[in-house]
């Protein structure tokens, strides 16, 4: 069957146990379903489809297992990942300090050009906060990584974070492809109108899907 999407990005969520990685992939709602069976087995990954500037983008988002530590996460874990969400818990100082260790681990094991973003989760719990937003921002500046505070519970900034990371990956890929394929006869191929693209899907697909 023909592909029905323009891009496929593999993303990974990492961070200390309990920071809310699994929760970020879940939409909390009033009538929360009894999820006992599914949550006992645990989610490996989710596929979500987003519209990114008119492109249909599939995100395959991998959750990491609860007890994993940066010491045990190695190259195999990162294979194929194009984006990584580094998550800490704003009510847990230690999880924030460990972000540096996670970044080091990524530098040692992941591909050098993987896109990263730092999430300070549980920002709804202001009374219990141990890490100020300013410290999160400082860390992000230090490593030149984008940062946002999120609340999985209130669905605050979660969608924004995934769109931002996906947009950055797409921009990086386009830049790379421009470089390896300088403007000439093919220039503007990705500016075709939607219906033209459907007739000539390869022009865009060859640029964007890295499977």
């Amino acid at each position, binding site marked *: *069957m023909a592909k029905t999407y323009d891009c496929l990005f593999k993303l990974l969520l990492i961070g200390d146990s309990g920071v809310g990685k699994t929760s970020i992939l879940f939409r909390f709602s009033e009538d929360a379903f009894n999820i006992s069976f*599914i*949550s006992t087995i645990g989610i*490996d990954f989710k*596929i979500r489809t987003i519209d990114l500037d008119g492109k249909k983008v599939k995100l395959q988002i991998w959750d990491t297992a609860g007890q994993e530590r940066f010491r045990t996460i190695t190259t195999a874990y990162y294979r194929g990942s194009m984006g990584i969400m580094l998550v800490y818990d704003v009510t847990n100082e230690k999880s924030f300090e460990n972000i540096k260790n996670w970044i080091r681990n990524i530098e040692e094991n992941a591909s050098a050009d993987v896109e990263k973003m730092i999430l300070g989760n549980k920002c709804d719990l202001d009374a219990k906060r141990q890490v100020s937003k300013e410290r999160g921002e400082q860390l992000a500046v230090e490593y030149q990584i984008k940062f946002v505070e999120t609340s999985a519970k209130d669905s605050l900034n979660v969608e924004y974070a995934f769109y931002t990371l996906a947009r950055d990956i797409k921009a990086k890929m386009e830049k790379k492809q421009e470089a390896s394929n300088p403007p000439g006869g093919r220039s503007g191929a990705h500016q075709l109108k939607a219906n033209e693209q459907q007739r000539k899907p390869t022009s865009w697909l060859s640029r964007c899907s890295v499977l």
Partner: protein
Amino acid sequence: MSDSESVEKNGIEVSNEYVENGTNKLIVKCKFCGSKMLDKKSGTFVKQEKDLPLMQQETGKDAEVQNEKVNEFYHVENMYTFENIGFTHTVDNYKYLSCADCDAGPVGYYDMNTKHSFVALSRINHA
């Protein structure tokens, strides 16, 4: 579920209120939160009998999983055909499919050998 007016065996063209030319006529959504799982015409209707764990397990002390027999599925060859879906960790060479938003499930299963997915018609809504 529909009482399958003209539902036939695999391979034979099937039509009823949900199936047209062998594929899902309507969008496939989560029964609980409405999250969109499959676009129109992206799953092939198949009949096959499978044991699927109940979506709502009775919370007893014995950890025995309660199953039911399900026999109508949409077959999805490529996992990236899904709009939004969750895959559990692997159990006996299968992954279970769940709603990407509210985690309701299993709504079907994924076979690690063939890499094909199957969505149970009885576990989803058509819209």
